[in-house]
């Protein structure tokens, strides 16, 4: 059996790799659009040299679309940079709302692949908790994937974050119909090492159909 530390490193890397690959795909798509827009402007120039009148409004529109794509890429890179910095400290104070928003933005392509849309409920006031920044995202992402896998076809998943005593609670769902008995135990067992390191508990609430993750506040790092 693998040591817990090794399991944590491996699953953490897999999660980081999965998100990084999705981001690289998104950036490739943005580059492809910019490439085609630049090509279209070249086509207009070529046609103008052949004697066709230049449509200045069309050129303005294409230029604006290029700028939109640059802004889109900038947004992706900003989110990815924030995500990458979540590995800076093993334990740190984390704004869960901000963290989950970044995660959801980065995972749009992966969610689309699962035919899932994620609706993040408003978080007010902010929920800040001392936890393991990368690992908490890994657990929430695993829960989102698990929830999406319980239903066929297109699905809308709701995600809420709230304060719970010293810790925090993340609610993901709704699961309708509820998965077979004991299935959430399989999910709990699959995320055993991460749960333990985070001091987290996972429950499926049959009344609301929500998967509930209770996160304990960890001791702040010394110094």
């Amino acid at each position: 059996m693998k040591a817990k530390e090794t399991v944590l490193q491996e699953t953490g890397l897999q999660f980081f790799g999965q998100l990084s690959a999705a981001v690289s795909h998104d950036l490739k798509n943005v580059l492809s659009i910019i490439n085609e827009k630049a090509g279209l402007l070249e086509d207009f120039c070529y046609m103008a040299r052949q004697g066709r009148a230049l449509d200045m409004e069309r050129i303005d529109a294409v230029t604006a679309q290029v700028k939109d794509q640059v802004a889109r890429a900038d947004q992706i890179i900003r989110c990815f940079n924030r995500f990458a910095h979540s590995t800076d400290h093993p334990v740190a104070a984390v704004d869960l709302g901000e963290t989950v928003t970044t995660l959801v933005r980065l995972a749009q392509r992966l969610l689309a692949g699962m035919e899932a849309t994620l609706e993040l409920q408003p978080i007010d006031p902010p929920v800040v908790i001392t936890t393991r920044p990368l690992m908490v995202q890994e657990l929430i992402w695993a829960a989102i994937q698990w929830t999406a896998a319980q239903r066929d076809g297109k699905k809308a998943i709701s995600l809420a974050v709230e304060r719970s005593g010293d810790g925090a609670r993340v609610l993901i769902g709704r699961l309708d119909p509820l998965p077979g008995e004991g299935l959430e135990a399989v999910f709990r067992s699959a995320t055993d090492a991460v749960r333990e390191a985070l001091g987290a508990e996972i429950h499926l609430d049959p009344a609301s159909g929500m998967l509930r993750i209770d996160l304990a506040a960890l001791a702040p790092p010394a110094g």
Partner: protein
Amino acid sequence: MDEKVLLVDDEGEFLDTLAERMRNRGMSVTTSMSAVEAIHKTEASDFDVIILDLLMPGMDGIQALKALKEKRPDLQVILLTGHATVQKGIEAMKLGAMDLLEKPADINELTEKIKKAKAQKMILVEKKAEKKIRDILKSKSW
């Protein structure tokens, strides 16, 4: 003669712009934002070549390629991908894809591949017609 192309990608802006550039080059282009819609379009119309994005929500490019080739083995498919792994390339070729191009694609390279695909399709159609004629001749006593 115009090349009849079906372009399939879930990025609307990429789809519209590439389609416009291909039309500027004299091709007849139909677009589709999903593999399922593309399969329906191939049932309704005949295309010389299908340009298919590898990674799409729902049915992906490899699944779509499989479904298309099962129905119409003579269809010429070129895959477009943001992530050209060797493994995916081999899988696509085994399933009968004519070629695999990495995004961002060069329009001149893509145009060349479309022309080759059309020529390949014409050869297959001619062979099919020849076989049909031979079969008819064999079945008749004259």
